[in-house]
């Protein structure tokens, strides 16, 4: 009877999801309620988690609750700590969730709400969650080893070195792109800049509070930090209106770029407890709270989606937000919400050292990624509740807008200057035109949803506060990624150089700390600067590079997971990781080749360089160099993917044809009772 009830329940869940997808796919010409997106997503996640995650756990990895985990075997009260599954779910989610699923989704909304939503939902169930979960299982069975170590031991040493270099290159591009989003959000926004600038002294105060004044009082310090943050947010409105302070906090893109580079460098060289750790606690608090509130607000008001299901830019590839057709660019623009290679670093980092039971892994690895995808779906809802004319006016540079104005007018995506001016005033900004990067339009969408939610207590009046709260929320955790990333990049560079200069590897030797921090900050700073001064909008060139590089890392992770599965003697299940790997290789290779060799100057780096004439344009020489550099970076990523896939396929062939013994570095079984 109970079994029948379960069968009926899952049939009902599947049917509800199918109906929701049907409505999203078939309804045309009228606004669709966001409820259908939520139902489609939640039902698909439920079915994927109940059946596919369980299949992988039982058949592929044969997770065993009697087997002791690294957290138990190496428990030390610090890194290796057996942790309850729901607590670890929260910890893992806080570590993987960032700006990626928010911003990428907003940018991909130029194709309409349907392609991005389908990729977010199907991509996560069959790809992203599989990657996170399988890498977590691999690391769990290998004493919590990192992705690079597993690539070296399970594939071959060259793959390990390639994976390490890939992580470093990806980090540089990733930090540049994220910093560009912050620059575009804070450009000419005194309110936003003041609030974000205040987070630095607040973090310093929290650091001193937690480490020296009241050691370990993280809760107290975070609470004090949150109160000061709210005060800074409210005070920002006053500062923006002040005749002296307002202009003082109104900064151009290049000025903000230099500030961010200096900030990244300082955060990397200062002691970690002083700036980085308190910011991390503050942003985690804010991130979890805001995401929960946004989810509740969307579920309560269920706003209608004003963006059509599919726009003409999906097939024409002439989108003003970024160039390129739906395939492959929708799939690299939305990286983190569907599949993100970066998550493999977390799934083979702190999380496997904290799992109490092997059978907790599906909830944490697979379930955590489903939650991340749901954040992406909420961002899609926030972006698509905007009038399309407003969305395109905000996300398009003046240069791109001139070329796309006819297509936008034909699609009916128009907006009057008066409407944009009124919206800017409502949000407490001087202008919202050409605020590219995704963050400002997401902030407007979120502000409208929050204001709708709080309409009973003065909704419209609160819009400007909510807008700047959303900007602060996005910028704060992007800056946390930037300072942590610069520091981790510094450690990686120190380790690489230490092979030829051992002293350089000493992480506390200050000349090495300063040099390596400067090199990493200069690396991402260069790409950031070129993005800021690029008249076509740096997001157009840099976001695809970020997507390609992030998906490349996912390909590395899936190569490692496939190798492990084959060496475990379960080659018949290798399709679980080979299928998303094949898709990612197709997407990354196609996108990479198009970004380099496309004859369309809006899309291809080399084609764009050919349109520039140094005789008539004084900045042409620099822009040509940047285009060629970007083309070189894209080709490097393609080469890395090629090397890793070939090395992995060779290893699979050798093992499957019995030319090489299937030796895996899995730790021996230790029963829980034996400890």
């Amino acid at each position, binding site marked *: 009877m109970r079994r029948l009830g379960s069968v009926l329940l899952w049939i009902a869940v599947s049917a509800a999801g199918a109906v929701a997808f049907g409505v999203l796919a078939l309804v045309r010409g009228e606004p669709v309620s966001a409820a259908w997106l939520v139902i489609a997503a939640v039902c698909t996640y439920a079915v994927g988690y109940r059946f596919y995650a369980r299949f992988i756990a039982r058949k592929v990895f044969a997770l065993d609750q009697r087997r002791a985990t690294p957290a138990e075997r190496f*428990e*030390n*009260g*610090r890194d290796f*700590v057996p*942790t*309850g599954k729901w*607590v*670890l779910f*929260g*910890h893992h989610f*806080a*570590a*993987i*969730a*960032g*700006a*990626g699923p928010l911003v990428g989704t907003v940018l991909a909304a130029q194709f309409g709400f349907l392609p991005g939503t389908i990729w977010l939902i199907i991509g996560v169930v069959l790809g992203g969650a599989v990657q996170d979960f399988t890498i977590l299982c691999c690391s769990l069975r290998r004493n919590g080893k990192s992705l690079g170590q597993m690539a070296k031991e399970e594939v071959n040493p060259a793959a390990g070195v390639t994976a390490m270099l890939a992580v470093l290159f990806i*980090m540089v591009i*990733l930090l540049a792109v*994220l910093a560009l989003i912050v620059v575009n959000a804070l450009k000419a926004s005194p309110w936003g800049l003041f609030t974000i600038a205040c987070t630095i002294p607040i973090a310093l105060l929290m650091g001193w509070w*937690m*480490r020296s004044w009241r*050691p*370990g009082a*993280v*809760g107290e310090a*975070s609470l004090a930090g949150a109160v000061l943050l709210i005060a800074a947010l409210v005070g920002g409105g006053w500062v923006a209106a002040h005749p002296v302070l307002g202009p003082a906090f109104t900064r151009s893109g290049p000025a903000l770029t230099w500030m961010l580079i200096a900030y990244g460098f300082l955060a990397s060289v200062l*002691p*970690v*407890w002083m700036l*980085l*750790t308190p910011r*991390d*606690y503050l942003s*985690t*608090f804010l991130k*979890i709270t805001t995401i929960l509130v946004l989810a509740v607000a969307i579920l309560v008001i269920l706003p209608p989606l004003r963006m059509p299901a599919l726009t003409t830019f999906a097939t024409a590839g002439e989108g003003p937000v970024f160039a390129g057709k739906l395939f492959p660019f929708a799939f690299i623009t939305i*990286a*983190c919400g569907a599949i*993100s290679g*970066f*998550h493999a*670093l*977390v799934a083979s*980092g*702190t999380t496997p050292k904290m799992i109490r039971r092997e059978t907790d892994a599906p909830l944490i690895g697979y379930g955590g990624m489903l939650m991340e995808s749901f954040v992406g779906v909420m961002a899609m809802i926030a972006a698509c509740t905007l009038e399309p004319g407003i969305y395109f006016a905000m996300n398009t540079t003046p240069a791109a807008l001139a070329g796309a104005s006819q297509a936008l007018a034909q699609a009916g995506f128009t907006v009057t200057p008066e409407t944009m001016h009124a919206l800017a005033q409502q949000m407490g900004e001087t202008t919202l035109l050409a605020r590219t990067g995704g963050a400002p339009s997401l902030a407007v969408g979120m502000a409208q949803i929050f204001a709708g939610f709080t309409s009973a207590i003065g909704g419209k009046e609160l819009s400007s506060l909510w807008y700047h709260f959303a900007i602060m929320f996005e910028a704060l*955790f992007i800056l*946390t*990624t930037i300072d*942590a*990333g610069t*520091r*981790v990049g510094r*450690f990686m560079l120190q380790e690489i150089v230490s092979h030829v200069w051992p002293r350089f590897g000493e992480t506390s030797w200050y000349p090495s700390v300063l040099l390596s921090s400067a090199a990493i900050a200069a690396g991402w700073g260069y790409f950031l600067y070129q993005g800021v001064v690029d008249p076509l909008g740096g997001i157009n060139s840099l976001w695809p590079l*970020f997507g390609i590089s*992030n998906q490349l890392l996912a390909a590395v992770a899936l190569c490692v997971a496939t190798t492990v599965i084959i060496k475990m003697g379960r080659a018949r299940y290798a399709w679980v990781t080979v299928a998303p790997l094949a898709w990612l290789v197709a997407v990354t290779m196609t996108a990479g080749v198009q970004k380099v060799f496309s004859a369309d100057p809006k899309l291809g780096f080399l084609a764009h360089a050919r349109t520039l004439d140094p005789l008539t344009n004084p900045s042409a020489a620099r822009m040509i160099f940047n285009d060629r550099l970007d083309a070189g970076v894209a080709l490097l990523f393609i080469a890395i993917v090629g090397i890793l896939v070939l090395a992995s396929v060779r290893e699979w062939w050798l093992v499957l044809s019995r030319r090489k013994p299937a030796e895996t570095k899995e730790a021996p079984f230790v029963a829980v009772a034996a400890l």
Partner: protein
Amino acid sequence: MTLRGILRVIRRILGAPDYAAYLEHCRAAGHEVRLTEREYVREFLDNKGKAPRCC
């Protein structure tokens, strides 16, 4: 769940130092308590920042 339990959950989610967990570990493993709370917190905070935050 007690307030203490809730605070412990929040600490774990945030990745914050938890001296009580360290003491429990020492007691369960029969180890000598090597660090005072101040030393434990300093060591814990000084060792953070080696893992990337995701995008």
